[in-house]
């Protein structure tokens, strides 16, 4: 993550995210990365921090998103990943848990639910005929209920679960999850599913980078104007 720091799936995602947006992504930069990420997928179907670790929502998002950027999702067992993540939505609360047998947490509204658009895209690329053209493969309304009814702080901001205090991290990821739950697809296939009054609808977010899709497009366009920097000394 930083010089002398720990290395895990998150850093692969950060690197891939930055490199792809700024047009410095070269095959040498990520040589072996995709294969390493794939080794982080375990028997549960989810992805751990490093090979051998327990499957965890945060790491799974980072792994899947990174592989999406590197166009190597096929290295994963997508079916077991789908099985694992859909099992993480809580039948009572509607929100998601980070790992099996743990409690629901608002921030996983993004880390876990955000996997479904990524899976949808990867499976669609394979030509899976069973994919919906209107909904993600999780209960979008139930997640919105959890976020809107349980995760809002009366003084503003959002949180993990009732009883916890608000913080910027949970505010960010609850809102991101809400955006994912409200918007399916894009362009011609865009389908909005909004719980409650229309004013509840948020702007859509990009499932890989979690910034507005227009911003992604602008960044990519901007940096495409510049050549990919070479590693040779000037």
């Amino acid at each position: 993550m930083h010089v002398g720091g720990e290395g895990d799936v998150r850093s692969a995602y950060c690197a891939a995210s930055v490199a792809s947006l700024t047009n410095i992504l070269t095959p040498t930069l990520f040589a072996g990365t995709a294969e390493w990420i794939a080794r982080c997928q375990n028997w549960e179907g989810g992805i751990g921090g490093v090979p051998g670790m327990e499957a965890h929502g945060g790491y799974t998002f980072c792994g899947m998103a990174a592989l999406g950027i590197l166009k190597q999702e096929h290295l994963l067992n997508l079916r077991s990943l789908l099985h694992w993540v859909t099992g993480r939505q809580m039948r009572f609360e509607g929100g998601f848990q980070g790992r099996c047998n743990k409690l629901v947490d608002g921030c996983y509204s993004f880390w876990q639910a955000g996997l479904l658009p990524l899976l949808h895209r990867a499976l669609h690329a394979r030509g899976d005929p069973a994919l919906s053209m209107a909904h993600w493969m999780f209960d979008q309304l139930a997640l919105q209920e959890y976020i809107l009814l349980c995760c809002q702080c009366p003084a503003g901001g959002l949180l993990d679960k009732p009883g916890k205090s608000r913080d910027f991290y949970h505010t960010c990821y609850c809102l991101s999850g809400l955006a994912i739950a409200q918007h399916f697809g894009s362009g011609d296939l865009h389908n909005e599913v909004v719980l409650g009054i229309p004013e509840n609808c948020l702007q859509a977010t990009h499932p890989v980078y979690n910034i507005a899709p227009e911003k992604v497009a602008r960044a990519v366009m901007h940096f495409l104007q510049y050549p990919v920097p070479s590693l040779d000394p000037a």
Partner: protein
Amino acid sequence: DEIGLIPCPEARYNRSPIVLVENKLGVESWCVKFLLPYVHNKLLLYRQRKQWLNKDELTDITCTLLLLNPDFTTAWNVRKELILSGTLNPVKDLHLGKLALTKFPKSPETWIHRRWVLQQLIQENSLPSLATKGNLGAAPVERIHRLVQEEMKVCSDAAGRYPSNYNAWSHRIWVLQHLAKLTVKVLLDELSSTKYWVSMHVSDHSGFHYRQFLLSSLIRRTVTDNNILVQNQMVNEQNPSLQKEEENAGTEAACAEEQSVDLPRCLDEEMELCSELIDNYPGHETLWCHSDENLSNSHHNPATSHMTQAMDVDGLNESSRQGYTQESKRLKRAPMQDSLGSEMEYRFVDKVLSTCRDVDQARFATAYRKWLVTFLGQ
């Protein structure tokens, strides 16, 4: 051996806020708001080169800081510098970390620093001239073994202090991978020493995941050892020179010793443990999850089917392992030897379904039964 904060909003008496009772260190809470900014500021000034601190002062200040807030990376990094310059004994940081973990069992920075320290110690170990530094001149192997045992204890304590402590269990796995080299003995020892713990923490998914890690490492180990055995046999047939035979005999003996791992029995015992816990503690998803994977391991375990050279063991190589689906695994293995195991599973699940009163238990059992039917194809 333990630290903690004593809730004490006001300084009532004119005395030190530090309380030491039976080897446990307490700090009265009123002093924290004075102490923490003071030491924090001092360290920052040092870092900004505005105020010099000598090695002893640095050691004390970082120690204080980290016991109050162990996620302060800069403080750990200052200690890294002290260790690299030879003025701080790395073993001290293991002790400091252990203490910090009694109050902050998850602290990611503490675990990360711990791994850095351990890596330093391993490197030292491989240099014979430094083998006596920081320890009592024990032989390197013995030293590593003691380190490993101590790490297991630290992980276990931290895991007990916070449910499903991802960082503690991840560290435990890391230690086995990098310090203990995943020998069969260590894997078996860990299986037996964690058995009681997981029985007392039936919802702790991380604990059960650890057992899955141990079992899959054992399976992988058995397969590689069998491969070596098979290859040696082939070499022996081709090359009957005396010297080579001795070498191979040595390796074979080692493999034979390792082959004394009764893998099917390990897996059976794991199934038994799981079933027992499911019966005693209804409604824990972790246990059912663990059960699924155990059954999968039992059926697809190469040691339970006949070992032939034609058998496809490629799938268990690390790189291609993740590409495996349940279906492809089944097709590549020799035919199932043991339908007795699956019968027992059906009987177990049906028994649970007919006797349980817990809603979640019933749901898990039904799902498990459906999975059995699909998976076993019976």
